[in-house]
């Protein structure tokens, strides 16, 4: 087991290296320099700036410098936020984003699994149709349509919840962003759960358990739940990626000073180092979480052999 974890950890290194190389090359293949749009600078100043950002060095040299920085958690200085390093900006903004993301995933899993299981048990009844109709809407209405609609109706028209981030505090301002982020997850996870639960409920060992007179609750709780949750577990990697993506939109709509907000501003301002740093940071995070999901999968499914 320990050997397996170690092996998978080592296996993640090439992936991460690939991410760093690809994104680094992409940024440096950009036509024009990062400061082209600014007022024309005297040559001496321009040279100074280039030296400060090591833009005067050769590409491989810049890459080695960047990579060794990244390994020490240093993503270099931001091009636009002149007083901050990228690492500082990430450290400031990320805790807020991850808090929203984790809450949205928890809500998504709890409600999604519950709804999906209910629909599977009541297959082809009105309950099932309503739940799956809701789920179909959830996967079809994009988050950047749902989020403004929530603001429009729950905050602006009904005035139940605060619309923005600043100007309010506590749980109430977290509620709408978390709902907006969680809705697509609830929809996707409930569809996934329903499909896998129906699949499991049709298998031979469930027929055995029913023949043993265990009753619906015990059959689902002790026999069906574990295997039915495996696809949901596999989805956790993509779910995290999807929530991080969603947070980019949600943070912008609600004006939340999270990492997603910085990412979009950075992208629109062509703040290369910031965007590059965030991409690499997110990639590392997702690779790591995928790894954890893989390991958990092995713990739950006794037939997986660690090799």
């Amino acid at each position, binding site marked *: 087991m320990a050997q397996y974890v170690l092996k998978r950890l080592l296996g993640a290194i090439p992936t991460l290296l690939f991410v760093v190389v690809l994104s680094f090359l*992409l940024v440096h293949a*950009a036509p024009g320099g990062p400061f082209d749009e600014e007022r024309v600078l005297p040559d001496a100043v321009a040279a100074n700036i280039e030296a400060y950002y090591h833009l005067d060095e050769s590409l491989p040299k810049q890459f080695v410098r960047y990579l060794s920085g990244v390994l020490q958690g240093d993503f270099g200085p931001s091009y636009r936020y002149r007083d901050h390093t990228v690492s500082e900006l990430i450290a400031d903004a990320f805790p807020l984003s991850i808090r929203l993301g984790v809450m949205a995933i928890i809500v998504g899993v709890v409600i999604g699994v519950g709804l999906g299981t209910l629909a599977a048990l009541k297959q082809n009844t009105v309950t099932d149709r309503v739940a799956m109709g809701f789920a179909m809407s959830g996967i*079809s209405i*994009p988050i*950047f*349509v749902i989020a403004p609609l929530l603001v429009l109706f729950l905050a602006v028209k009904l005035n139940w919840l605060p619309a923005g981030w600043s100007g309010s505090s506590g749980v109430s301002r977290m509620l709408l962003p978390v709902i907006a982020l969680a809705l697509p997850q609830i929809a996707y996870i409930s569809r996934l759960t329903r499909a896998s639960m129906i699949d499991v409920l049709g298998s031979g060992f469930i027929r055995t358990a029913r023949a043993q007179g265990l009753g619906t609750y015990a059959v689902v709780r002790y026999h069906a739940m574990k295997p039915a949750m495996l696809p949901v577990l596999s989805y956790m990697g993509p779910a995290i990626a999807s929530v991080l*993506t969603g947070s*980019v939109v949600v943070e912008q709509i609600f004006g939340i000073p999270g990492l997603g907000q910085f990412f979009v501003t950075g992208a*629109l301002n062509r703040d290369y180092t910031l965007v590059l740093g965030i991409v690499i940071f997110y990639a590392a995070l*997702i690779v790591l979480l995928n790894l954890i999901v893989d390991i958990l999968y092995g713990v739950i499914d006794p037939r997986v052999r660690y090799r």
Partner: protein
Amino acid sequence: MSAVLRLYRRIRRNRAVNVSGGILAAIAVLAVLLPLVSQNNYLETDFGRILEAPGLADMHWFGTDDLGRDLFVRTMMGIRVTLLVAIVASIVSLVIGVLYGAFAGYVGGRVDAVMMRFVDALYAMPFIFFVILLMVVFERNFLLIFVAIGAINWLDMARIVRGQTLSLREREFVEAARLNGVSTARIILRHIAPNLMGVVIVYVTLTIPQAILVESFLSFLGLGIQEPQTSLGALVNAGVNQMESAPWMLLIPGGLLALILMCFNFLGDGLRDLFDARQNR
């Protein structure tokens, strides 16, 4: 040919597939034809009548935006762009995914293992962020949107096609053909490809809404299609900024976008049920 005919008959009997397919076809036709009929075009501004509510006057059926442009024609143009991006991106992912997956699955062994390790590695990456990076670096190139979205979506297709090919390759009817010395080209053409068709059709249908989502997401953030060109995502973004004073600017493009996505999802689900039933028989 009659295998196709049988499939067609079964599809005709499936309501979800028929209804959603019909709506999509209608939307596509209207989006192409109606802008030609309208007296307005999508560029013309009229600062005398900004943020006008939907109505029949002057054919501003969906009202006007904050620059006084006709929203009906803009929305139709947006649908055109959205559908075009989705379809082209899906073809890109179809071609790459099927070729890659079928090759890995049919060759098998070490080649397959290496090719699939590569796919696994790509899977673990936050592609949407790469696409944004790409958009930042390459100045929101329209063509690049196609390539970028296709490059995300081919992974699923490759995995599924590879899995199917691998299991088809081991099937006894393929073995029987190989034992008789039937050529590889003929085996692929007569034995593998026709049996792959089902899953490929289903997954293309399911990648289209994903492609639409990515495109509209980018456009919403202002990183996709650029003014004065528009897409549903860009229209939603404009709508969000005016939603308190002109909610129709958000509701109409947002609702149409959701409708299109929902139809594609229903279509994919329906087709998948059809093919699953075929395989279970």
